[in-house]
């Protein structure tokens, strides 16, 4: 599983960090930093919640 963050869309609102803080953090510049781009399958539920929670639809999960 791979996390794709579209930094052109990202507005740094941080909902991904709220849902899955081990994988996302908003940086001081106000865009997301993906902490681990290839997470294990057992994190799928939290990551899907992060994707859904993004107010600008900047995140995708790819298998």
């Amino acid at each position, binding site marked *: 599983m791979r996390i794709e963050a579209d930094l052109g869309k990202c507005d*740094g*609102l*941080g*909902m991904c*960090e*709220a849902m899955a*803080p081990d994988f996302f*953090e*908003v*940086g*001081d510049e*106000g865009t997301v930093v993906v902490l681990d781009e290839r997470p294990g399958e057992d994190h799928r539920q939290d990551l899907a919640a992060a994707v*859904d*929670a993004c*107010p600008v639809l900047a995140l995708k999960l790819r298998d």
Partner: protein
Amino acid sequence: MTFVVVGASLAGLRAVESARRTGYRGRIVLIGAEDHLPYDRPPLSKAFLDVDGPGEVEPFRSEAVLRDELGVELILGAPAENLDTAAREVAVGGTAIPYDALVIATGATARRLPGARALRTAEDAVAVRAALDRGTRIVVIGAGFIGSEVASAARKRGLPVTIVEASPVPLARAVGEVAGAALAGLHHVAGTELRLAAEVTGVADGGVRLATGEVLPADLVVAGIGALPATGWLEGCGLTLHERDRGVVCDATLAAGPPGVYAAGDVAHVANPLFDGEPMRLEHWTNAAEQGAAAARHALDPASARALEPVPYFWSDWYGHRIQFVGTQHADEVVAQGATTLYRRGDRVVGALTVDRPREIMKYRRRIAARAPWSEALAFAGAA
């Protein structure tokens, strides 16, 4: 089996998407009062108003995706007229649509002042954007978040703008007086004239008339004076509507009472176990998304229903500054520390507001969700 969702904005969209994701294969009907596919509202008072903003309001999903991929029957431009919880029917356009499960997500309607524009719908945004393009003199009534964002858009174009606010401190109900007063300072720095404790007696040709007799000249008047739950169609149907604003009163699972009936988003008053059961009606993007998805799951499988404990979150962009708030402002003590304001209830941190601290805000949200002690939030603020 028929799943009916009334309200075709974010909460309603998330409800139908969530229904399909849970594996539900039955009929879905999505009813919307506006003649638009579901679209995103926060940008309407932000990027949409910019000189180089998008000229059109794009829907979240195309009609083809909604109809063909999600299998949703769309009834748009048609407000629901009645709910019969005994017969389990929603009336719309003179037709009764039977339901087995129902999500009420009709949202809120902007309070409007005669002669003034609100900013709630796509049409409102197009009109305000066009007025800004013409280089209009603008007066904003109400120094809340929407009004402040409109003022910000005007200043970004170098246009003069005045905000008229009835309260002595803006945003006191949303963020408390300490933070409200601090945020007012952003208007002054940006050159927006802010008239506090000012009473508007009317909007007439050419301007806004104040109780003092003064008339503030304006080509466009925007009223950002709040929104009320769109529940006129539910009066007398047996649901409990809130005594103050007529929102739908729900339990913490979003159940509205009658079998199969749930509510989500701006329309719903929900007791929040995270804050001592404080009843909350939130007009926030994240709340609509989360409740919409949960209400669908619960309506389709009531046995799976569980109490939600959301941490409210909203953001606003003024003059290039990012304002973010998490939690509740109903606190025993409020402490301002630089660009951060913290809210204490008992020995817990229950709220945090930051200005231009995008890296920090979710650290507070996590602590609020975990019922973390006040001392921990203060220590983080000191170290951050």
